[in-house]
């Protein structure tokens, strides 16, 4: 137990901050994922074949390639890509991007592919009559989306989005390979310096279980809220 003490003698405070880091990365990645889903869902649902192709390419590639490989691509290629863009503007110094940004971006792209599929499925399962009724009543386009389609879509999407959240949360453990100090990395450091890997990795497992358990409880509440009237 003294291994978990707060302060200089134990690893309690370090692990606490590492847990906060895991939450921060997961939330950022999830939001970046939503941004990607916002771009690619319309592409997948578009009437045009070429736009469909782009949308399908994104979701197929990302969901068919291991997360770790995507993370390595961003970790080793991220600063190179940014330096290439910077060199076009005449800036040739070495740029290092921070591990938090690379990590959340990599996980965000992965989570975005799953979110895209969820949104696509949710929109497609809304009754066609709803779109037609809105049209007949002369509802404006953006009001139709925000007041009619979105609320119905969220109800259908929330259970699946909660799965995406769980996947994202667990995927953040892979960012530890880039050196970002989240739960896994901190446990690795602690295990190395105390020579007690069993304890620290088991504790990491407990932390992840707690995170998944608490988020499940919160999402269940949301689900109840959005399924009112059904």
């Amino acid at each position, binding site marked *: 137990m003294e291994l978990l003490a707060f302060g200089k003698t134990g690893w309690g405070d370090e692990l606490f901050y590492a847990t906060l880091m895991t939450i921060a990365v997961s939330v950022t990645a999830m939001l970046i994922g939503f941004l990607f889903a916002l771009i690619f869902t319309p592409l997948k649902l578009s009437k045009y074949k070429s736009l469909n192709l782009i949308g399908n390419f994104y979701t197929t590639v990302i969901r068919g390639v291991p*997360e770790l490989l995507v993370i390595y691509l961003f970790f080793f290629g991220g600063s190179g890509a940014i330096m290439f863009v910077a060199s076009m503007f005449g800036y040739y110094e070495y740029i290092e991007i921070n591990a938090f940004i690379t990590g959340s971006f990599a996980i965000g792209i992965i989570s975005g592919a799953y979110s895209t599929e969820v949104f696509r499925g949710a929109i497609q399962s809304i009754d066609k009559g709803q779109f037609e009724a809105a049209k007949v009543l002369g509802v404006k386009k953006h009001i139709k989306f925000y007041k009619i389609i979105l609320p119905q879509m969220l109800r259908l999407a929330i259970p699946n989005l909660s799965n995406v959240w769980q996947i994202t949360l667990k995927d953040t453990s892979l960012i530890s390979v880039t050196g970002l100090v989240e739960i896994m990395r901190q446990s690795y450091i602690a295990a190395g310096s105390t020579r007690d890997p069993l304890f620290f990795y088991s504790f990491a497992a407990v932390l992840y279980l707690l995170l998944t358990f608490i988020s499940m409880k919160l999402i269940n509440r949301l689900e109840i809220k959005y399924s009112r009237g059904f």
Partner: protein
Amino acid sequence: MDLELMINSFPKLLNATVVTLKLLSLSLLFGLFIGLLFAIMRMNNNFIINKFAYGYSYLFRGTPLLVQIFIIYFGFGQIEFIRSSFLWVVLKEPYWCAIIAFALNTGAYTSEILRSAFQTIKKGYVEAGKSLGISSKIIFYKIQIPIAIRQSLPAYGNEIILMLKGTSLASTVTLMDLTGVAKYIISTTFKPIEVFIVAGSIYLFMTFLIHNFIKFLERKYNY
């Protein structure tokens, strides 16, 4: 774009694919047994057995696979009891540690897939079997299991693909699988995009094959 590097790294990556496929097939094989065992335990009426199986699947589905590998590879070596027993022969090898972790992980997911498949079997099938005087053991093996397997094919296909991606974590415990070799080439040549395209295509090709194989099985066992 460095085409030469892509062509040169292809045979190396293809060699590493063999390791990935070995890891995948062994863990799926063991995982299927574990999954079936725990699915049957989940349907048991005994409270303790039922809750134990539930706890198992909750534990393995609620934590990242990376943690599970690290506990087995780094953690178990610390216990004196394991170090001095015959288990150490297996647990000191990263290869077997990875397979054990993968099998336990996919076993947890498989048990959920099979459980829901068993639960969706119509009561009428079992009752029909009973009324024909077939023993409950044979009903289970000849009626319930084949139907459950057919029911769970789509979900299990997804699980195989997830596991294929999961085997990439073997590279974190020093194994040179497809991702491990890809990372090695990236870190020596600093050409991440080229290597990503080659290694990614190999993974995509395997996903494609698995996907179509499952589709084929689904059509074949359609009823």
